[in-house]
C-alpha cells in the first residue's frame, strides 16, 4: 500500500490548468485582453479596460475601473490604449467599440500612441449626451495630461467629465465660449455693415425709369431685309446619353461598425 495517492489524470489536468492560468496572469501581452472589470447588476452595462500600450500601473487600472463604474448607470464604458495602429484613431475607436459593445449604449476612451491622439467614441443613448462636439470639448480639456505623460489623470478626468455630462451637469468649455463670442461679434459687425451698405447706397435710376420722364418719340418703319451671305459653323450637339449610366454597387463608410455612434478627439 502506497503512502501517497497516485496522481490521477484528473489531478494532472487541474494542475496543468492552474499552471496555464498562472502563465496567462504573468504574461503581459495576454494579461489585458478585454478585461471586464465590472458589470452593473441593475443595468447590465459593463466596464472594459484594455491597456495594450501599458500606460497605466495595476493600481491605476484598479482606480480607473472603479471610477468608470459610475458610468454603467447610463451605458457601457471602455478604456483602451494601443501602441500601434494602421488606421486613424477615429476609425479604430469606432471599430473597436463595435467589437466589444456592438450597438449598445456606451462610451469608449482611446489613447492611440501611434497617432498620438486621444479619442472618445460613444453610441446609443450615451451618444445623445456625449455628442461629437462634447467629445471634442472633453478631449480638449484633458489632452494636456496625455501630453505630459500622465495618462491615468487624462483618462480619469475624461471619464469624470463624461459622468458629469451624463448626470445632466455642465463641463468647462472656456475656449468654446471665447471663440464663439468673438465670432458672434465679428459676424454681428459684418451683418450690420452689410445693412449700412444696402441702405446708404446712392443708386441711380434705371434707364427705363428715366425714359418715362422725358419727351420721347420713336418711330421706325418695318425693316426691309436684304440677304447678303451665309456662314456655316460646326457646332456638335452634346450627347447626354452616358450621363445617366452608373456602375451600380454601393460603398459603405469605412471605419466605424457601430452605426449611429460618433465622437471626437485631440492630438497630444
Amino acid at each position, binding site marked *: 500500500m502506497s503512502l501517497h495517492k497516485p496522481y490521477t489524470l484528473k489531478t494532472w489536468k487541474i494542475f496543468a490548468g492552474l499552471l496555464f492560468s498562472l502563465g496567462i496572469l504573468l504574461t503581459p501581452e495576454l494579461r489585458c485582453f478585454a478585461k471586464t472589470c465590472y458589470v452593473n447588476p441593475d443595468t447590465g452595462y459593463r466596464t472594459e479596460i484594455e491597456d495594450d500600450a501599458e500606460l497605466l500601473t495595476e493600481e491605476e487600472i484598479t482606480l480607473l475601473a472603479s471610477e468608470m463604474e459610475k458610468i454603467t448607470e447610463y451605458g457601457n464604458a471602455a478604456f483602451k490604449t494601443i501602441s500601434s495602429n494602421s488606421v486613424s484613431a477615429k476609425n479604430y475607436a469606432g471599430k473597436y467599440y463595435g467589437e466589444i459593445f456592438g450597438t449598445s449604449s456606451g462610451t469608449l476612451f482611446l489613447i492611440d500612441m501611434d497617432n498620438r491622439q486621444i479619442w472618445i467614441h460613444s453610441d446609443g443613448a450615451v451618444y445623445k449626451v456625449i455628442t461629437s462636439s462634447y467629445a471634442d470639448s472633453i478631449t480638449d480639456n484633458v489632452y494636456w495630461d496625455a501630453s505630459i505623460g500622465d495618462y491615468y489623470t487624462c483618462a480619469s478626468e475624461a471619464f469624470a467629465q463624461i459622468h458629469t455630462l451624463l448626470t445632466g451637469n455642465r463641463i468647462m468649455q472656456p475656449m*468654446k465660449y471665447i471663440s464663439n*463670442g*468673438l465670432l458672434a*461679434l465679428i459676424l454681428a*459687425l*459684418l451683418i*450690420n*455693415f452689410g445693412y449700412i451698405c444696402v441702405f446708404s447706397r446712392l443708386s441711380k435710376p434705371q434707364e427705363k425709369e428715366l425714359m418715362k420722364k422725358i419727351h420721347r418719340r420713336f418711330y421706325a418703319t418695318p425693316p426691309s431685309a436684304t440677304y447678303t451671305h451665309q456662314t456655316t459653323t460646326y*457646332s456638335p450637339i452634346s450627347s447626354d446619353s452616358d450621363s445617366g449610366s452608373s456602375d451600380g454597387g454601393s460603398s459603405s463608410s469605412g471605419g466605424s461598425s457601430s452605426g449611429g455612434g460618433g465622437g471626437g478627439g485631440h492630438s497630444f
Partner: protein
Amino acid sequence: MYECPNCAANLKFDIGRQMLYCEHCETILDPYSFQKEKDAEESTEYEVTVFTCPQCGGEIISEDTTAATFCSFCGSSTILDSRISKEKKPGYIIPFSKTMEDCKQSYLKMLNRAVFAPKELKDTKHIEKFRGIYMPYWVYSFENKGPVTFPGSTTKRRGDYLYTDHYLLQSELNAEYSGIAFDASSSFSDSLSGAIAPFDIKKGKTFHPSFLSGFYADTNDVDDRLYREEAVNIAVNDSCRQMAAKKGMSRYHINGSDHLHSLKAALRPKTIEAELAMFPVWFLSYRKGERIAYAVVNGQTGKAAADLPVATGKYLIGSLLLALPLFVLLNMFFTLKPAASLIISALLALLCTIVSNIQLTRIIQKENGTDDIGLRAVRETNAVRDNSRPVQAGRANKSSSVLKYLLIPISLLIISVLVPVFLFAGFLFGSFLDINTDIITRLMTLLIVLFTASPLVIFFIVKKPRKKKPPLPKGSRKKKLPVLAKPICAIVLAVLIWIINPVFDLYYYGGAVICMCMACWAVLDIIKQHNVLTTRKLPQLNRRGGDELA
C-alpha cells in the same frame, strides 16, 4: 426782388399755388406777368444777387436781396457777401412742387431706415436748415431722322452645323429724345444728383426769373460736353431696345452681341443739343469737424437721398445686441475645434481685408474727384488755368498695366514650375529626412489651394472691367498699406500656425483670437472709411471752378 404792385412787399413763388404770392396783401400773380426792366424777354441774361460764402467761396444766386445767413455748401453760419451780377438765362425751369414740410417728411422717412445715423441728422433745428435751391442741369435733346441700315442674321441648325443667313436691314427712322438731364454744377455731386433723379421734364416750364423768388439757385460751371456721351448712350440704348421690339425684328437678332455695335452706330443721333435748365432741390448740409455731409430732396417728386455717416457708438451697441442671439445660436449648434476656429477667423480677417481694400480704393477715387465727372473736369481746368500739373494718373496707369501683364507670366511660372517642385521636395524630404510629414502635408495643401485659386485670381486681374474707371493716382498703395497690414499680418500668422500644426491648443486659440481681434479692428476701420466715403472735405469752391479738394 419782385415787388408787389399793391403793397410793394416782396413777392415770393408759392409752391401750393404755383404762383407769385404776397404774404402781406395776399396778392396772387402769374410769374410770367412780371417783367423787370433789366430782364427783357429776348435777353440771354438776367440780373440776380450773387451770395458768396467767405469761408468756402461757394456761390448761390437769388432774386432776393435779403442777406443769406448760412452757406449750404460748407455748412458755416455766416453772413454771405452779396453783389449784383448777370447770369446766363436757362432755357426752362421745373418749379418747386414739394413744400418744405413735404421735404422734411421725405427726409425723415428715409432716415427711419438709417438706424446707425448720428442723432443730429434727425434734429429738428438741423432739419429747419433745408434750403430750396434750383440746381443747374444740362438737358440734352437728340434727333435721328432718315433711313438707317444695320445688320441682322437668322440661324438654323442642320445636324452638327449652324447655318447663319446674314441680312442688311433698312428702316426709316424718326427718333427724338428730349430731357435726359445731368447736373451742371461741380458742387452738386453726381452721386447725389443721380440718386434723386429723375425729374419729370414734361412738367418743365419756360424759364422766368420770378420763379426763383423765395429760393436760391446754383450756377453752372460744368461744360455740357462732359455728359454728352453718357446721355447719348442712354438714348441709343433705348433706341436699340425699341428697334429690337419692333414687329418682325426678333428673328434677326439685331440686339445680339454680333450686331449690337453696328446697330448702336446706326441709331446714334445725328443732332445733339444741350440746354441749361433749373431743377428744384431741397438742400441740407451736416457738418462735423472738417467733414460735411449733404442731404437732398427732389423738389418735384420728393425723392430723398443723403450721405449717411455712421455713429460709431450706435453701430457698436447695435452690433453687441445682435451678437448676443448669434452667440446663443453658435453655442447651440457649433463647437469649433481649435483648427477650425483658426481657419474661420483667418477667413473673416481676409473678408475684412478685401472689404477694406475696396473702401480704400473708393476713398482714393473720391478724394481725387475721379468718381465725379463734373468735379474732375473742373479740377483739370483749374490745373491748366493755374499752370500746375494735373494728377499724373496716366503714368500710374502705365506702370500698373505693366505690372498687371508681368503678373500673368509670374503666376504661370509659379503654377507650372514652383508648385510641382515644392510638392516633389515635400515628398522627398518628408520620406528621407524624417521631417514632420504633417507640416509638409499642410504646406502642400496650401500650395494646392493657391494653385487652384490662382487662375481665378488671374481672371479677376486681367478681365475687362465693365465700366472703364480712371486709374488710381501714384502712391495709392502706400496709403492703403498701414490699414490693410493689420489683418494681413493676422492671416499670415494663422497660416503659419496651421502649417506648423502645434499640439497645444493655446497656439490655435491664440492665433484665432488675434485674427478675430484684427478682424474687429479692421471692421472698425471699415466704418471709419465708410464715414469718409459718406462725407466730404469742406469745399473750397473759389467760384467758379469748384474744387472741394483744394
